[in-house]
């Protein structure tokens, strides 16, 4: 069972995020880290490969400046190798362009299964998993919370607003994995040291046989036209408890339809 996990390397959400004033894109300079939402896919990929009794996990990522910090984290967790597409020509690429690049890179790994997060923590488009599946001509299952491989098929419990539905699709397939469904392992010391020596194949757009004009800012069909700061949070309401505080809490919760 060879699994590809798409991972994004993002600016540390604990730090301050900056937007480029002209393009309205997130400034992605400096050190990037593994998007935490991707760690669930990595963990699930590792578990599926272990359960299958063979095979390996390959990471596929697109990032500026040959960034590998986030990849090393996932390699330390146990992934065997990584394919990194890093090319100045990719600056300004939109979601579909990203999906084209990732799909082309995924093809090289010839996986049985492709896992992604449901959306990234810095971009939040949430469209890439389905776009990759379409480009690769594979079935797409989103919001997977439980994944079981049975022969040439994969059975997925798919999270919905009401509960979950069970879906079975033939392999290979593209699955997006919801956060929190598995507990991502912490890399051990040995894993961290081993990650240093694991192969990261760095590719350019031309290596993937993609027309350079189809990606990057020039190929982008999606444009962020304006960015507005989120409304500042209003001060909270202070309720004085004259012995009926609990009733006021209950009526507040009823008002916001929590109960």
């Amino acid at each position, binding site marked *: 069972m060879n699994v590809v996990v798409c991972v994004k390397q993002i600016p540390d959400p604990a730090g301050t995020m900056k937007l480029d004033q002209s393009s309205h894109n997130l400034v992605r300079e400096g050190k990037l880290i593994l998007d935490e939402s991707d760690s669930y896919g990595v963990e699930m990929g590792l578990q599926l490969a272990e359960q299958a009794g063979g095979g390996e996990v390959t990471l596929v990522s697109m990032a500026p400046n040959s960034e590998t910090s986030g990849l090393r*984290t996932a390699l*330390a967790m146990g992934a065997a190798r990584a394919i990194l597409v890093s090319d100045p020509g990719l600056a300004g690429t939109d979601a579909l362009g990203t999906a084209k690049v990732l799909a082309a890179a995924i093809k090289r790994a010839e996986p049985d299964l492709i896992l992604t997060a449901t959306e990234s923590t810095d971009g939040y488009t949430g469209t890439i998993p389905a776009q990759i599946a379409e480009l690769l001509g594979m079935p797409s299952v989103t919001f997977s919370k439980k994944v079981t491989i049975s022969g040439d098929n994969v059975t997925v419990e798919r999270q919905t607003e009401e509960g979950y539905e069970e879906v079975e699709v033939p392999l290979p397939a593209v699955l997006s994995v919801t956060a929190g469904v598995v507990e991502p392992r*912490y*890399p*051990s*010391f*040995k894993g*961290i*040291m081993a990650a240093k020596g694991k192969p990261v194949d760095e590719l350019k757009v031309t290596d993937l046989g993609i027309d350079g004009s189809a990606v990057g800012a020039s190929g982008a069909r999606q444009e962020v036209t304006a960015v507005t700061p989120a409304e500042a949070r209003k001060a909270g309401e202070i309720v004085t408890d004259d012995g009926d505080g609990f009733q006021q809490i209950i009526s507040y919760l009823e008002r916001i339809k929590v109960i």
Partner: protein
Amino acid sequence: MLFTEEHDSFRRTVRGLLEREVTPHADEWEEAGHFPAHALFKTLGAHGLLGLEYDPAYGGQGADHSYAVILGEELGRMGCPGVAMAVGVQTDMATPSLHRFGSPDLKEKYLGPAIRGEMVTSIAVTEPDAGSDVAGIRTRAARDGDQWVINGSKLYITNGTQADWLCLLCRTSDEGGYRGMSQIVFPTDTPGFAVSRKLDKLGNRSSDTAELSFTDARVPVTNTIGEIGRGFQQQMNQFQNERMSAVYNSVGGMGRALERTREYLKQRRAFGAPLLANQYIQFKLAELAAELDVLRHYTYACAEAYIAGQDTTRFATIAKLKAGRLQRNLADTCLQFHGGIGYMEETWTARYFRDSRLLSIGGGADEVMLQVLSRLDGFTA
């Protein structure tokens, strides 16, 4: 000291693991006066944290000491010094001699399981009449053929109620003073061994501390670590590891305490402004931050000297002395600036204030550090 990407990654692993496995349970374990050492150590062992610098042949990671610095800082930061101390006993107090001087058989049987977290260990040196004055110990191992017959008692033994084996220092000849002592691996299921009582401490309450007794307890002479009669010297060596690891804990804990105090004082308002708008408070905290930074980099210099194979006695002595004093001052200041709520047991400052007191006493009191330093620097007549 240059920390690499691997160091940063290791720090993230340790911090994340400890925040998941220890921090949420700290209050409960403090209340209980006990933490589940076997369960926690297994988890830590599985991540390679209990034998970072040890030989991979026995399950160690073969890392250099810089990783132990990170582990120590993060153990200090997690907000449960009792557990940090218990881990430190396992990694830096009870096992270094065994790793360095023990026979292959002894290491196979006792070091491997300690590194994997399958066995909990204690260092048993202090006695009712001999603490910092190690040369005064009286617990005796008398030779009977190929066995030691051990009689005596040990006091203030960390992990004492849960330990599977002790690194026991006792007299093996009548030479007296610092001569004629040996370090012995003592399995606690040996007949004649008993936990006399569990001790009630001011701080670090989640860590169990015990008084132990030995009555005609027999262990094989092959359980001796290193050379018979060299126990004192081996133990003095082991103390350097203990002091360094205690200071790394302290540095991590103080950094976290300053962060927490800063965040509280930003949101706590008095007289129409956040408390942190008060210049007196700003300067007091800045001064502590400066002193902490100096200490942190002093410990890095100590670690580098250790990695280079130099004798770190002077480094470790000074670091422990200054860390103990700074920590008392810093814990007191953090509590003070929290005001009334800081004095409440529900606030972290109360426990931190109690826990912080130990560093100036354990592993050689401040006064012993001063004595060692006076001797090293020739302040004697």
